[in-house]
């Protein structure tokens, strides 16, 4: 396919979309790692969720 005289604009917009989507995914993955790590740390220091346990216990 040939993109004609405006190839840079077309390529830039696709690249920008790719970058933004990758950034979003990266942010979400990093955030997930951070939160689970902090949860694990808290659990290691002996803090547990009372409400969580009771919630899973109810049908």
């Amino acid at each position, binding site marked *: 396919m040939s993109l004609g005289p405006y190839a840079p*604009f*077309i390529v830039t917009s696709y690249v920008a979309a790719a970058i933004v989507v990758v950034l*979003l995914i990266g*942010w979400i993955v990093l955030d997930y790692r951070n939160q*689970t790590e902090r949860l694990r740390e808290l659990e290691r220091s002996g803090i547990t969720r009372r409400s969580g346990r009771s*919630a899973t216990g109810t049908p």
Partner: protein
Amino acid sequence: MSLIDLANPTRFLALSARVLPWLAAATAILLAVGLYLSAVAPDDYQQGATVKIMFIHVPNAWLSMFVWGVMSMASLGTLVWRHPLADVAAKAAAPIGAAFTFLALFTGSLWGRPMWGTYWEWDARLTSVLILFLMYLGLMALWRAVEDPSRAARAAAVLTLVGALNLPIIKFSVDWWNTLHQPASVMRMGGSTLDKSFLIPLLVMAVAFTLLFVTLHLAAMRNEILRRRVRSLQMMQASRVAFSSDMGTGSRQENASTGAA
């Protein structure tokens, strides 16, 4: 799977963990197909190859409004039904919506450069999207400004709904302002009659991006639930009884806490 099941954050975490891989796979496949279709799509007789920008721009512009709609529904959930996941959904959607809106603006401006000869034209549609972008940023600032998430949720919900009601008014005013100042000299984006050779890739891309949003949104909601869990655990940790009268080194603290757990 009933609504009550979904209302429980723990259930939600378990369920979404099962759904997410499938969603991600479907998104990836559909995106690949959409990209292939838009690559082989013919050039427009008027816009030339720049029509390919549309295949990115239109789905993002659609999502910029769709996400606000999702947030409005969630806000109703927060205000009316006090659904425990509603404000999580609203909060998680805002940055993703802002990112898609940014992409809509960016690609629109790249499309406009060859068409208008300038990156930015105060065209009615682009301007409305710009205002929408500002509203997304304002909403994110509100979420950030208030430390307590449940208090922020109600304020953000009101703002989201007011925004949803206002958007048509804003759109109408901008249209009116625009025609007042420049009578239809600017070529409208997209064009009204779409050939089937453009419509199919456009639709596939729109569905693919919507799926992408759903996937990202679910993942972001999971993160938000975990963040709130961390926060409440930290509050518990802070309020743990401090044994101050003995000037111990904290070893007793460990014993006490394991005993309590």
